[in-house]
């Protein structure tokens, strides 16, 4: 469990998603990272029903991560989050009357997992209803749990293989009430993924305008 940074890598010009992913793999292997299996992160959306006022109902996102295979995380966008056992999904089925599953909105990111000394790099293809929409890169520095201490190191590492696509310090860490020097939680990772998935979802709307 360490500090994670999730960012999106734009698809290279004239290349497909798969090709960009392969390029990144090659760069990592040149760096000396070792492939260590696969990973997946997925996100399901639930609408809260029974909303008296005409406001758009709040969306509940239930996410899973292969790094924590026995847990389910439930969070509202920008709001509180909950870490629970895998049985939480069954609970959501029972709460069908209050939370309705928006089946078409399931987003997931699957890919390979590389390990480079203390760094874990996960490069995944973000797919929504089995069409690849983007590339997610997650870098985790396992040796530290305080973002403020290791952000510079992580940035430098990311620059070495991401080049210009290196992100800034994720807003999750700066938005924390206690500041940059509090230990991280798995919720921070999930919030970052949620943000990324949200961006990816919106992205699709732009090219195919008019399609909801």
């Amino acid at each position, binding site marked *: 469990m360490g500090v994670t940074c999730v960012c999106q890598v734009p698809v290279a010009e004239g290349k497909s998603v798969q090709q960009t992913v392969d390029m990144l793999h090659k760069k990592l292997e040149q760096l000396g990272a070792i492939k260590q299996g696969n990973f997946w992160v997925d996100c399901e959306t639930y609408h809260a029903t029974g909303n008296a006022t005409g406001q758009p109902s709040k969306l509940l996102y239930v996410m899973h991560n292969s790094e924590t295979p026995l847990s389910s995380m439930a969070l509202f966008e920008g709001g509180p989050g909950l870490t*629970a056992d895998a049985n939480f999904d069954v609970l959501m089925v029972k709460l069908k009357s209050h939370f309705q599953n928006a089946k078409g909105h399931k987003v997931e990111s699957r890919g390979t997992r590389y390990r480079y000394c203390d760094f874990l790099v996960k490069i995944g293809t973000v797919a929504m209803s089995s069409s690849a929409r983007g590339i997610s890169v997650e870098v985790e520095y396992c040796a530290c749990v305080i973002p403020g201490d290791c952000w510079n190191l992580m940035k430098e590492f990311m620059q070495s293989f991401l080049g210009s696509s290196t992100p800034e310090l994720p807003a999750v860490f700066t938005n924390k009430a206690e500041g940059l020097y509090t230990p991280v939680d798995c919720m921070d990772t999930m919030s970052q993924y949620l943000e990324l998935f949200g961006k990816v979802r919106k992205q699709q709307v732009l090219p195919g305008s008019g399609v909801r």
Partner: protein
Amino acid sequence: MAKSCFLQLIAQVQEVSLDGLETYVPLLSMSQNLAKLAQRIDFNQSSDSDEDGPERESREPWGKPEPEEDEGTVKFQPSLWPWDSVRNNLRSALTEMCVLHDVLSVLKDKKYMALDPVSQDPALTKTPQVFQLISKKKSLATAAQLLLKGAEKLTKSLAENQEQRRQRDFNSELLRLRSQWKLRKVGHKILGDLSYRSAGSLFPHHGTFEVIKNTDIDLDKKVPDDYCPLNVQIPSDLEGSAYIKVSIQKQSADIGDLGTVSLFRRQPKAKPGSQMWHLKLEAAQNVLLCKEIFAQLSREAVQIKSQIPHIVVKNQIISQPFPGLQLSISLCHSTGEKKSQRASPDKSKPDDHLYVLEHNLHQLIREVHTMPHPASSPFGHKRLRLAGPMAYDKAEISSLQQSEGLLEKIIKQAKHIFLRSRTARTIDSLASRIEDPQIQAHWSNINSVYESSVKVLITSQGYEQICKSIQLQLNIGVEQIRVVHRDGRVITLSHQEQELQDFLLSQMSQHQVHAVQQLAKVMGWHVLSFSNHVGLGPIESIGNASAITVASPSGEHAISVRNGPESGCKVLVQFPRNQAKELPKSDAVQDARWTHLRGPYREVHCGRMEGRNFVYKMELLMAALSPCP
């Protein structure tokens, strides 16, 4: 007129004492009586006193009390004539007799008076006595009946006691048995369960024993002391006793033989009062446990893959934790009758190993037994329930889950024990062989089954405070030894004994040079150069040689020390040029002051120097070379 008078023939009771003894008023003799009565008669007052006094006297006594009461105490004159009262009484008696006579004579005529009998209830007079008698008889009869009944019952029960003594003993024994073992009744038989199934074991042995009544006893003869009315019949394959023998044997010369230990062999001490059935059942359960452990081990030995495959032969498992080391686990089951021929030479080592291994084996088998648990809780470790909410990652989850089998664990433990004992032996042999410098080992008391640690200090005697730069922390694991040096280096050594020995020797040689460095500081000498691994001089086969050069405070002398693990120690002293025996003359250097510089070297024979150890010798040398001011 009816006068009730009775003859006082029995003595009157004066008092009844507390123990029932009655004291009677003594009867008066005739003369005493006469005197008593005479005092009562008053012949002076009556005119018709008769002469036949004695007759009347004899008749009087019983009539006395009433006339006395009738007349009252008016005429009480003690100083009167003694026959006064007698006379009065006689007179009154005569009067009454005359009256009676008159009445009778009048009645005889039947003209003026008639006699009519008064009706009397015959039952009144007669029945009180008879009734009392009958009622007493009845009550006595009832009481007697009750007592008889009770006596009958007692005799009957006593008779039954004798007969059913066996029966009652059997029940009480059965109760005792039931308090310690599980029993159930199947038809007419009583069966018991001595397996570990209730603890969660999955071993397919039924473990049923039968309880039978022991009826081959003759009550008339004397009952033997160890007689037990209850007998248990255990399954035939659990008879006798069993134990597990673990032995670690060497196959090549350099690895020590750790010997043999027997686990689960100890006979449970027969507590006073414990019956034979208890011992029998415990022995049978022990056999079952040994069988289960051995079955589990042999199953794992066949299944798991390791570099050197394990061999399972009949009732022995042979595996090789280290090359050249053989670990054999065998199940020894001996039925009770025949004595085992091999007089098991148990090397009674002061064995922490025996209890620790046995305890470990108990714990391991308990972990194999899956405890019964409610259907709602999943299999596995309890802490896995927190895995979801606490977002455990894969590393944490896998650390919680058991992935090793029993045999692997035992082999790991055996490896660790072996490695630890060999490390200890290496250090001890070095310590006893080499006196300078000294090697100290401080073993940590708190170890785990897979890891122990020891702190090794290399010091010189007398200079412990100055020269303490070589301190090593050895963490002995399952297969490797990890050495952490004081200066931060971490070195991993394999299980080979030679590696550790070489390493320690090289550290010892480095210590000598470090000691000279520290000593120089204390003595005020300047360190000119110091190297842990010199590249000059003869090549050492173990480690590297170290060297140091120190200069005296005045700068006139310098000492160079080179110490190697194999080559030993070489000390050279540099003198000023003017002390050299042969002074090379040179035209270039003419000034006399240049002769104060250091020049030639001379070797010091350390072996011939005085001093307990090397550092002491160096101190002496330094002291000798610094002249007193």
